[in-house]
Structure formats: structure tokens, C-alpha cells
């Protein structure tokens, strides 16, 4: 066993209100610079929808992620984008490169027009101008252009996940009283088998062994742009001004000083959890070669129980510090992912082993109206799951590589927790109904209570369990990230400047 630790994340989609505070917190600290205006290291998408960049999930278009094919000695994993000679042959023009049109052209407004326009009968207006060339532009897209299903017949209809979906389910998505949507906040998944790392011709992208954060060495990056195509989540971005690629750094300068990343810290719905997972690096290769429907199970297998004395001993042997093991024992992520099996990875079929997990949204609230006009929580599990507007199929294609069973199990637990607490606090659900719900979800009352506590009333310290840290390089002073606003955000002291 080769044990490594990974700072991992859980996003509880049931709690996300789609306020975009996370995106703004990130933008203000890291990407408020020329060339980075269009980047959203953290973005919040409405699903179903095309996402950002447009149709990022369509890997036939962008060739992201890894693929498995049969080799002479069993299955082989390879990048969908390129083999090694292809990478060099395509250096001069990357065939699967998303361009600015797939994101949006960043703009500002010509505010001077408001002050300098001559006296007249009309209100002066500030025209939008491009932040690339300063020319006036017509704004045709932007981040969250299809927020809250705006223009869903144009945008959401192009959601790649809706292809091959059964026509009835598809119909429901677009009929007024039956439509559903949920928010999907996305940051870099800090994958164990990151496609960006594998695709970088210069070898500039790496994973920090201590905490698993994936970073781009800005000195080694030569702007070959293969990472942009290869990341199936489109979470590496090309800075058109500096000629370097950039990505989410999980606010490591904040982590190293004991603060949660800005998007986590600022989350209004408190949907975000951060903690350490211990995993067995020897199992990575096997986990990658599992068939689609077993990918999530195999990933869970890799994640080890930090309370198990054998695991603790092996962790010590592998050089994981005691403090990190303690942090892993208190990790909220471990509970959601492995103990309760509520949280699932985003698109495990890309075979990057993403380490950001999502609790699927249970929306809308499952109530039925009584004859006397009052509302009552739905207790029939099967019926309520079928009545739920979110089609299980859509969720399983998003979070479980098509394995409906995993999503159904998570949903049953979430419904059972609601019924259990309803019985306890409101009392209009009988003890039998509550017990039946727990039995159906194969869980105990203690577990339901624990899920409730960590989901609904966790403290800051319970949501973010940050392990002990040594700072990057151990030689740098601690800087307030706010002071680094105009810098690259990669620990550089000089402002990023376009090469000669």
C-alpha cells in the first residue's frame, strides 16, 4: 500500500442557491487581470444547460479526458486528445482547441462617454467595448448566459447529456410545470489521473504530493495549449495576454495559512466541504481500468478508512504526517464520499479520478397537498423518487457514468433523512413511516442524525478541516492573497508580463 493524502471537496447541490458568490470571490482574488478576464476558475452552471465553455461535456468536440481500449495485455488507458508524437505534430495548431467564441469576449463599458458627452436631449450611454482590442462590441454571450434556464430552448436543448435520453424525460425538461433545473458549481477537480498533466508537452503541470493540488508551473509553461483541450472539465484556461495557461490553484496560499479557499469561505449556502482523503496510490491503475458502471465503486475502494489501525500504520510508513491522518479522521469529505456514499464524482467516465464530489440535488421538495389544504412530506419511497422531477437518468449520466443504482441509493438516504427529521421535529409522520424509510435506505437513525447534522447545522470548523501545512517551497513569506491581486497567483513577486 502506497498511501497518499488529497485535500478533497464535497459540494452539496441540494443546498446550492446559485448566487455566484463563489465565482466573484475567486474572480476578485485571482483572475482580475488582462488575459484572465474571461476565466472563471470557479463558475456556477445551470443544469440542464450548455455550461461554460459552451458544451464542455461534448468530448467528441473537445477530445478531453482519457479513453480505455483493449490492448494486447488487457485494457489500456490513453488520452483522447493525442498520443505522444501527435502532441508534437499538433503543437503549431491544436485541432481541438476551444477559442474565445466558445467562452465569451470579455468586455467593459466606455464610462467616459457618460461624462464627456455633449449637452443634449438624450441620456448618454456607456457602450460596451471589448477588453481585448478596445473596439465596441455587441455582447452575444457571457458567463452564465443561460442562467436559470434563460433561453432554454436554445441553450439547455443543446446540453450534450440530453442526447439519447428517452423522449418522455426530455419532453418533461421543457414543459412549464414539470421542468427542473439545478446549479452546478464547478472548480478544478484536482484529479488523481489528471488529463491536463498527461497532455502537457512541456511537463509544466504537476500534482503536489502533500495535498494533491494540481498546479501549472508558470515558468515551465510554454503555451502549447494541450491542457486546455485535454481537461474534460475545461478547467485549464489559456491566458491570451501572457501566453501561459492557468487554472484553479485551490487557493493554496490560503490553505497554507489555515484558511478555506475563497470560494469555500464565501459560500452563502454553505454547500462546500473540504477535508483530507487518504487513498492507496497503488490502486490507481486498476481503478482507471474498471468498466464504466464500476468506476465510482472502484474509486471509493481506493479511498481508505483513516480510523483503521492498518491504514494508519501504512500511512506512517508512506510518510503521511500524523497531523494529516488526524485531519483525515475528521474529514467531512470522507463521511460524505465513503461512509455515507452520498457524494459522487463528476463524470467519472472521463477516467481522470476527480477528487471533487457532488451530493445530487433532491429537488423540488417532495410534498403532497392534503385534503384540508396542508402539506405533508411524501413518505412512499418509490413513488416519491418517481415523482421527483430530477430524472435519475440525467443525474446518473452526470455523476455516476450512467449507473442509476448509485444515484437512487443516495437519493433514498436523503429522502429517509428528511422523513426521519420530519417525524422528529414536526410529528406529522409516524414512527413506523420513519423507520420504514430508514430501513429502505439501509441506514440507522444514528446515521440519519449524523447526515442531518453535517448537512444542515455544521460549523465552519466541521465544514473545512484543513490539514497541517508547510508552505510551498518553505521559503516564502506569507502574503495576504489580496495583495497578490495583480500578480499571477502562482507565488510570483512580479506582475505577469507578456513575453517579449
Amino acid at each position, binding site marked *: 500500500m502506497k498511501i497518499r493524502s488529497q485535500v478533497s471537496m464535497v459540494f452539496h447541490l441540494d443546498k446550492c442557491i446559485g448566487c455566484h458568490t463563489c465565482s466573484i470571490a475567486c474572480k476578485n482574488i485571482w483572475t482580475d487581470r488582462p488575459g484572465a478576464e474571461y476565466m472563471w476558475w470557479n463558475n456556477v452552471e445551470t443544469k440542464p444547460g450548455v455550461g461554460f465553455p459552451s458544451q464542455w461535456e461534448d468530448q467528441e468536440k473537445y477530445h478531453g479526458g482519457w479513453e480505455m481500449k483493449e490492448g494486447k495485455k488487457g485494457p489500456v488507458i490513453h488520452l483522447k486528445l493525442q498520443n*505522444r*508524437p501527435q*502532441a*508534437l505534430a499538433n*503543437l*503549431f*495548431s*491544436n*485541432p481541438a*482547441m476551444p*477559442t*474565445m467564441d466558445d467562452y465569451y469576449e470579455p468586455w467593459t463599458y466606455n464610462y467616459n462617454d457618460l461624462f464627456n458627452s455633449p449637452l443634449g436631449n438624450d441620456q448618454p450611454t456607456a457602450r460596451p467595448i*471589448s477588453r*481585448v*482590442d*478596445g*473596439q465596441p462590441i455587441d455582447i452575444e454571450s457571457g458567463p452564465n448566459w443561460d442562467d436559470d434556464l434563460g433561453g432554454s430552448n436554445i441553450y439547455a436543448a443543446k446540453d450534450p447529456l440530453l442526447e439519447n435520453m428517452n423522449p418522455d424525460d426530455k419532453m418533461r425538461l421543457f414543459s412549464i410545470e414539470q421542468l427542473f433545473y439545478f446549479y452546478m458549481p464547478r472548480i478544478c477537480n484536482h484529479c488523481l*489521473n*489528471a488529463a491536463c*498533466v*498527461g497532455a*502537457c*508537452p*512541456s*511537463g509544466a*503541470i*504537476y*500534482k*503536489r*504530493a*502533500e495535498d494533491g493540488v494540481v498546479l501549472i508551473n*508558470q*515558468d*515551465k*509553461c*510554454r*503555451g*502549447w*495549449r494541450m491542457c486546455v483541450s485535454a481537461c474534460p472539465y475545461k478547467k485549464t484556461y*489559456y491566458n*491570451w*495576454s*501572457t*501566453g*501561459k495557461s492557468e487554472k484553479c490553484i485551490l487557493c493554496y496560499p490560503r490553505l497554507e495559512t489555515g484558511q478555506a479557499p475563497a470560494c469555500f469561505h464565501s459560500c452563502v449556502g454553505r454547500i462546500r466541504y473540504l477535508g483530507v482523503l487518504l487513498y492507496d496510490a497503488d490502486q490507481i491503475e486498476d481503478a482507471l481500468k474498471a468498466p464504466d458502471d464500476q468506476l465510482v465503486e472502484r474509486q471509493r475502494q481506493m479511498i481508505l478508512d483513516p480510523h483503521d489501525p492498518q491504514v494508519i500504520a501504512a500511512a506512517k510508513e508512506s510518510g503521511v504526517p500524523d497531523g494529516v491522518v488526524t485531519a483525515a479522521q475528521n474529514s467531512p469529505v470522507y463521511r460524505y464520499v465513503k461512509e455515507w456514499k452520498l457524494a459522487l464524482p463528476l463524470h467519472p467516465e472521463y477516467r481522470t479520478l476527480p477528487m471533487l464530489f457532488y451530493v445530487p440535488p433532491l429537488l423540488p421538495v417532495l410534498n403532497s397537498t392534503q385534503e384540508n389544504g396542508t402539506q405533508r412530506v411524501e413518505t412512499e419511497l418509490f413513488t416519491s423518487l418517481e415523482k421527483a422531477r430530477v430524472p435519475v437518468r440525467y443525474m446518473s449520466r452526470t455523476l455516476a457514468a450512467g449507473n442509476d443504482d448509485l444515484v437512487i441509493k443516495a437519493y433514498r438516504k436523503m429522502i429517509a433523512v428528511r422523513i426521519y427529521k420530519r417525524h422528529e421535529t414536526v410529528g406529522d409522520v409516524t414512527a413506523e413511516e420513519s423507520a420504514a424509510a430508514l430501513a429502505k435506505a439501509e441506514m440507522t437513525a444514528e446515521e440519519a442524525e449524523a447526515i442531518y447534522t453535517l448537512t444542515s447545522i455544521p460549523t465552519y470548523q466541521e465544514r473545512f478541516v484543513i490539514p497541517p501545512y*508547510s508552505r*510551498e*517551497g*518553505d*521559503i516564502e513569506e506569507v502574503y495576504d492573497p489580496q495583495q497578490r491581486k495583480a500578480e499571477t497567483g502562482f507565488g*510570483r513577486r512580479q506582475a*505577469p*508580463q*507578456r*513575453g*517579449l
Partner: protein
Amino acid sequence: MLEIMLFVVFPYVALAIGIVGTLYRYLTNQYSFTSLSSQFLENDLQFWGSTLWHYGILPTTAIHLAGFTIPKVMAALHGTPDLLYLSELAGKILGIMALVGMGILLYRRLTSSKIRAITSTIDWIVLSLLFAQVFFGLILAFVYRWGAAWFIHTATPWMDSLAFFDPAPQFVTALPLAHKIHFLTGFLLFALMPFSRLVHIVTFPVSYLWRRFQLVIWTRRRVV
């Protein structure tokens, strides 16, 4: 005197500036080493321009270098009229590819306001010089034919004499003006390398052919 300045002193100065300057820039400002790709802003013309240019100029440059370093092998490669004819043809095709590619790239920079916004003065200088260099190269190829043959009796001994610090400019001083311009622009471009995006040539990531796919770096095991 002028000939010594142009064909002895200038090449040495250009080589020194190119090598020392690039090393200095690499050691002091590695962050600036990038191809500065603009594919993100404009994709369609970029594909044709950049692909034609690079696939034309890289073999052409390699053939020139081979002419300097292994002239006997190169001479053997066009030892018969048939082979000479073929190598002339191949050289011209590659040259035309490069010229058309650079033409497209220049046109793209001139017409797209986004690309113009991120184009610096040195970019314009380097791109124009590259275009001129390939243009004069093609003039030599078409006007003074069988360059594959006369190359190794003029340019090669001159370059060899420079390489062994025994300068012999007489090998090239009698050549027509187009030749001289082609030689001098070549050295000028070399001298401009550390001051332009041309440095991306030396960072061609050939190690991707054998490096491990996943890179994991330990902070505390690294000697700081």
C-alpha cells in the same frame, strides 16, 4: 573592409548576441519563454498559416544546417541529376509552403483587430524579416538554380571557416546581392532571438516523447 564587417564580424556578433542573450533570458526570466500563441483569439487562418509555416520552415532550416555540418552526405544525396532535380523540387515546395504560411499569418495579424492588439513592434519586425528571408531564399532557388549543388561550395566553406575561427569571407563575397541579403538576414534573425518570441524554438518539448504521464512533486523531499 565592409566585407569583413558584414561576413566576419557581423556573424560572430550575431551569434554571440543570440546565444548569450537567450541563455541570459532563460536564466533570469523563464516566465517570458512562451510561443505566445494567438490561436485562442483566431483559429481558422491560424491553422493554415501556422501549420504551413512550421511544416515548411522546420525541414528547410534542418536541411540548411545539414548542408553546413554534413556536406558530404548532402552532396551524395544529390549526386545524380535525378536526385538533384528531386531535392530542388522538394526544397522549392517547402519554401513555398513557408512563404504562403507566413503570408497568411501576416495577413491575419493585419486584418484581425484582436490579434493586432496583442502584436508588439518586435513581432512585426521579426515576422517581416522571416517573410523576407523566405522570399529571398525562394529567389535564390528559382533564379540561381541548383542551389543544392552550389550551396556546399560557397555557403558551407564560409560557415565552416567561421566555425573553426579561420574566417574566409572570399567564398561568399563574390556572390550576387540576393545571396548576401539572405545570409545577413539569417544572422540578423539569430541575433533577434533573445529579444523576441523566437526563443520558443529552443523549448521544443521533445521530452514529451518519453516522460511519465503523471508528474507528482514532493515539497518536503525537494532540496531547497
